[in-house]
């Protein structure tokens, strides 16, 4: 399972479903809130990723963390990958 690829795919799908234009390459320093995806779109992304990856890191973490950039989002999923239930 390539987590980054899954995140990128889900991210693009979430944007497409909300008629948001996505840059061709998703750079590490891309600020999520400035990318066009609003908080509801982000919730759809997290839900979709839970279905695909088998875990929701935001539910598993003890203290809430809100990733600011695409790299931070990726790192959150990477940190909890061992908790995947599939």
């Amino acid at each position, binding site marked *: 399972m390539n987590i980054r690829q899954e995140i990128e795919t889900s991210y693009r799908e979430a944007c497409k479903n909300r008629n948001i234009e996505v840059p061709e390459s998703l750079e590490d320093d891309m600020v999520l809130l400035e990318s066009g995806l609003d908080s*509801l779109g982000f919730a*759809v992304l997290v*839900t979709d990723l839970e*279905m695909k990856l088998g875990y929701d890191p935001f539910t598993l973490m003890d203290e809430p963390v809100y990733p600011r950039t695409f790299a931070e989002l990726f790192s959150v999923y990477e940190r909890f990958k061992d908790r995947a239930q599939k």
Partner: protein
Amino acid sequence: MKTKPILITGGTRGLGLSICRKLLKSGYEVVAAGRTKSDELSQLIESHHETPSSGSISFERIDLADCASLHSRINEISKKARGLYGLVNNAAIGKDGVLATMHDSEIHDVIRVNIEGSIIATKYAIRSMLLRGEGRVVNIASIIATTGFNGLSVYGASKAALLGFSQSLARELGKANITVNSVLPGYMKTDMTSGLEGEKLKSILRRSPLGRLATTDDVAETVDFLLSHNASSITGAQFKVDAGSTC
């Protein structure tokens, strides 16, 4: 056509069971949730199996007091149902008694089940609706939330919280084509109100222009309407079903 699974918390008896019965008749995939499967629900499931119609009904164990279990339980139920279309937040506990002498643990229990459990269950149930691009949430509040009643301050607070929750959530989920509405039943004859007799009951009947109590079936009809296509433009609304006792 997409199936329409509806999760009803507290669906094993009283109002919840009436809602399950009505939704089954309307052809939904009814998932009745509760701590234990009641005899009445077992009978309903059995009789449906004997004379199956368009809908379906099943039981799922959920304990809203055990908030930590809700994520996995709701996910399992959603997965089994291939994505929920609706959630009816009906489960609640009601402790009757003046606040000054109510035990702290009873206050915590009401808050945990009626507010915390319902909110967390909603959090996970709406996720499959977000992916479907459509959905319905119906929160069963109570007229006590707005009128008050002697001896029900904590219960009333919990139901008022549910109303506030519904209003903001309706705004939050509108863009996702998910409606959120509240139903405020008046006094009905259920296990929960079985202690309501004598002068208290007479006083409620006197206040009703219709001279009677609303029934659980009356409330179930309203829930059925809110889940239907006919209610697709209704969100953030509150429906009193109380035979007019608060008008």
